[in-house]
Every structure is written in structure tokens, then in C-alpha cells.
């Protein structure tokens, strides 16, 4: 091999390494398949949240909440999804879970079957302002006095975790629980759970 070709080979090798180092590829992956996720965390994955959401809806339908309520009151029950309680060590789980749950519930039921009360604090503040403006005559009021929806049920979730490490591995058992509570009687209509345990390897020499 001549000196020139050897040098060319080295330059090509260097360029190859540079391109590999600088390449920022993003790949679309299936949110329900955490095996595809290259990030190895022992925390919650989107697939876990989808599984729990499916379980909530499954319970809701299995318990015939809507049918029983309509048979009794001839009206669809009103549900308020309460802020989930996050006792894991992983932030940013609550909002995505709540948003996904409400969207799935709305998507998989009709308004005749079940109605939802939007209780997000920012929306509540805006609604109060709007109602004040209507009552003060500053804004039109189409249907006369109407009041905010009172919930028949609270749907509440809680995430708890048991986290352990030996310095080399991290293990997190995350228990997702959800419950439907009758707001008149505080009766627990149903409670479900979903437990996921994950172990991830840590860099042993990080410190």
C-alpha cells in the first residue's frame, strides 16, 4: 500500500468517525413498544401509561358505570378526572397520563354515555372570569343562567414507587392505582392497579 493510499484511508476513517459522532438521527418509534426505546431507564415508559389507561377504561366499561347511572337518573354521569398523585421519583408523568386518559375516555365513549367536567385550575380560572363577564353584561349570555357541572364521580390516579439501587443497577417498582369515587356518598365504585417493575444498569464508574 502506497503512502498516499494509506493517508487517504486514514482520512476516510477519520471522516467516518466524525460523521458517526455528529449524526443526530431521530427515529419514529411505536409508543406502545418500549423495547424499541434505546433509552434504558427503570422509570415509566409511554407504553406503561397506555396500558394503565386501557385498564381504567376496561374497568369503567366492565362495571357498567354509565348504564347503571342512566338507568337510575335517565342522564349521563358526569366525571371529573382529579390531578393524579405522583409518589414516584420520575417527574412529567402526571400530565401526560391525565391528558391521555381524558382524551381516550372522550374518544371511546359518547356524550350520551358519559360527560366530563374540566377541572384544570387554569381553565377554571378562565371560566370564572368568563362567567363574571356574562353576569356583568359585558359578554353575551345565550341560555340564561347556567352553572358549572357538578361531578357525580371523581376519577383519581396515584403512582407510587419502590426504588432501589446497589450502585450498579437501579430497580423501580411502580404501582399505578386508579379509583372511581361517588361524590355524593364517597363510595369507592372501583379501584384497579397495575404494577410494573424495571431494572436498568447504571454506569458503575460514574463517580
Amino acid at each position: 500500500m502506497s503512502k498516499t493510499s494509506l493517508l487517504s484511508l486514514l482520512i476516510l476513517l477519520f471522516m467516518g468517525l466524525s460523521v458517526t459522532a455528529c449524526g443526530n438521527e431521530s427515529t419514529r418509534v411505536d409508543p406502545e413498544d418500549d423495547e424499541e426505546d434505546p433509552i434504558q431507564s427503570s422509570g415509566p415508559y409511554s407504553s406503561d401509561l397506555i396500558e394503565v389507561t386501557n385498564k381504567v377504561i376496561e374497568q369503567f366499561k366492565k362495571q357498567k358505570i354509565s348504564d347503571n347511572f342512566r338507568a337510575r337518573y335517565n342522564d349521563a354521569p358526569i366525571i371529573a378526572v382529579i390531578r393524579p398523585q405522583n409518589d414516584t421519583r420520575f417527574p412529567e408523568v402526571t400530565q401526560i397520563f391525565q391528558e391521555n386518559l381524558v382524551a381516550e375516555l372522550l374518544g371511546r365513549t359518547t356524550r350520551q354515555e358519559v360527560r366530563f367536567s374540566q377541572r384544570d385550575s387554569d381553565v377554571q380560572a378562565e371560566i370564572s372570569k368568563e362567567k363574571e363577564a356574562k353576569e356583568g353584561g359585558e359578554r353575551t349570555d345565550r341560555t340564561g343562567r347556567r352553572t358549572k357541572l357538578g361531578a357525580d364521580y371523581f376519577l383519581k390516579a396515584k403512582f407510587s414507587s419502590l426504588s432501589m439501587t446497589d450502585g450498579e443497577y437501579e430497580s423501580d417498582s411502580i404501582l399505578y392505582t386508579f379509583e372511581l369515587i361517588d361524590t355524593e356518598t364517597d363510595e369507592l365504585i372501583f379501584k384497579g392497579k397495575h404494577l410494573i417493575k424495571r431494572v436498568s444498569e447504571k454506569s458503575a464508574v460514574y463517580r
Partner: protein
Amino acid sequence: MRWFSLLLLPLLLTGCVGATYNVAESMKKGGYRQVIEDTRNIEEFPERDQTLILNWRAQAKLGLGYQESARNDFMRSWNMMNNSQGGNVAAAYMWNEKSKYYLGEPYERMMNSYYLGLLFYMHGKPEDAMACFKNALYVDTGDLEANEYAADFVPNMIMRSRVYIDRRDDNGLKTQLDELNRLPKDARNFDPNCPWFTPEAQKEANTLIWVELGWGPYMTAEGRHGEIRVIREPEYAERYAEVFINGQSLGKTYKLGDTYYQATTRGGRPMEEYLKAKGIAKDVTTVAGAVAIGVGAELAREGHGAAGAITAGVGLGLLLWGALSSAEADTRCNVLLPGQIHLMMAKVPPGKHEVEVRYYDGSGRELGRQRQRALPLNVPERGDAVMVVRSDPHYVVPRNEKERAADPYAKAPALR
């Protein structure tokens, strides 16, 4: 050409360890603004340093009131510090410890989680905040069965208490404060005379002003080969603060956290023993390498050509490893952390107020240059007002949501 390849190999393996970003120099040159500008494109820095630089940038953004942007940086670095397995570990063993990916010492990871939680809490996300505070406890706790260290960072415990109050969880609040009250009453860690460690005092207050003093620890590499990493405490004069709301003194702040204490009270690192061994090996391989080359040359002279060449090659390899490897300890750390964290708690009527903070040295003399006036405090009808302020006259507390969410790189910054 073979010799050239041999020389190139260590450089590739070390990941070209070079000078990282000098944040102390930037702070001297232009303060937080300089740090924000210098670190605008994180991708320009070596991957091994990006997590640390993100933490510095987050601190700098916090210092100028860009709280939302700071939270994003803390979150990004949180993900790397808690989900990443690091990188360049083999190079750290073989060549230079600084070539490994910075993931932070336990106290730095704890502080990252604490600030992230604090910002989530301040911006109406108490459940995300709770998760961060729990992670701060987790990373600050060792193997309790092996009688190792337990989490003892009081500001984190106080913030967890605030979330329990927000949840109306009296049991959680009591359990958390019981845990706090069981901590050893060590004045180096916190002031045990602080009157706010009871559920009643916590429920009574609706305003928390976290006052941060001085600078957190830095690290030096000492010993013959720099293999001993020493944690140093920078000097700063401020020892406590006095908080005024609308001109009325609320009294002296109480020390609740000490970063130097947190950094120095954890167990030794596994890397330390290895670095000591590496320092010894560096000396031994240099001598052994020289001896092997000598023996190789002698063997060649006596007619054992092949054996002589192999022995000399091994000797040269040892010599090169001894010369090129570094036993120097990794001294990268988050030097922008505060030295101490103090608290003032009070019940303040809802509405807009003005806060003044005065700082004092150990002899009770006011450090007039550091006095901060007219800091905006907005107490809500429900829930808490939480303010973070630092003993730095250039520190900015955002006046409103617009300032809090401002883009630090906008052409006409909304902030002062």
C-alpha cells in the same frame, strides 16, 4: 507507519481530552449573561461535558430570572443524570478520568433534582415537584442496610412538606416532618433552632423565601499525580440574611442547607482507590517499560532478534501508557451552586408586595453592596408564594409570568 498508528491510538481512546468550558472565567468576565451566551449551543461542547454545562446554564438562567428556560435545562440534564449510563468509562480507566461522561456526584444530582422540583412547584406543578424531591432523597441515600448515609438535605424536606399541605395530606406532612426532626442536630448541616419544623408552623405560613448565600464547593486534584481529589470550600463573607416585606423586618433567616456539607459527608467514591492504584502503576510501568527496552536491546545484541524485538515492543508500550495515561482525578463539578441555603417563612396577605434582603457577615456587619431592594413578591389567594434569591446584587427575580417565561436569547430581552 506502525509507530504512527501506535501514537494515534491513545489519542482516540482518550476521546481527545481537552480543556472544557471555564465557567469561573466567564462568570468573572460577564456574570450569568456571559455564561448564557457562551453556552448557547450545547452541542458545540464535548458530549462528556454537556450535562455539567447544562446545569451551569440552568443556574445562570435562574440567576437572571429566566425560570422556565432554566427548568427546561434542569429537566434535560435531569434525564441525563438519572437515565444515562454514561460513556467513555473504559477510557476513564485506561487514560484519563475526565474523559468519562459527567453525571454528577450524588450531591450535584440531588441539587439538580431539588432545583427542578422547586421550579415545578413554583409554576403550579406540585406532583412533578414531588417526584423531583423524592428523587433528590433517593440519590442522596446510600445502602441503609450497610449503615450508609441517609438523605439529610433539609430544604428538600421542607418542599416535600409543602406538597403534602397542597394535597391536604396531614399524615404525609407529619411523617415528613418527623423524619426531618430525627436528623442529627448538626449546625454544619442546618440550624436546629429553626422554628418551622412543626405541622402547625408549616400550615400557618404561605410564603417561603429561599435565600442562597455564597458559592458551592470546588474540587482540586492533589498528590504526586493529582490522583487525590480534594473538595474545597470557597470563601465568602455572608453568613445570614434579614428579610423585609414592605419595609417591615421579618427577622433573620435560618440556615437549612449547606452544599459543602452535602458534598463532603457522603461515602468515598469507588474511583478514588482506582486512581491511587493508577498513580502507582504509572510509576511502575515507566520503570518496567525502560527496563524491558533495555533487556530487549540486550537480547537482540545476543542474537535473539525476535525475542528482543517483542520485549522491547512491550517495554515501549508500557512506557507509552505510563507517559500518556493520567491518574489525575476528575475535578469537574457544578461550581455555580450556592454555598448555603437559608429560609424565611411567613404568613403574608394575598397580593403584591416588595421584598428587601440584607446580608451580614459572621460579626453581624451588613454587607451593604449585596443588599437587594424591591424584589417582587406576589402572594396568591390559595397556595404558596415561593421566592428564590441569592446574595448577588445582579440576581433577578421575575416580576410576572411574561418575564418568567421569557426567552434568554430573544433580541430585546424583557428582563432587566
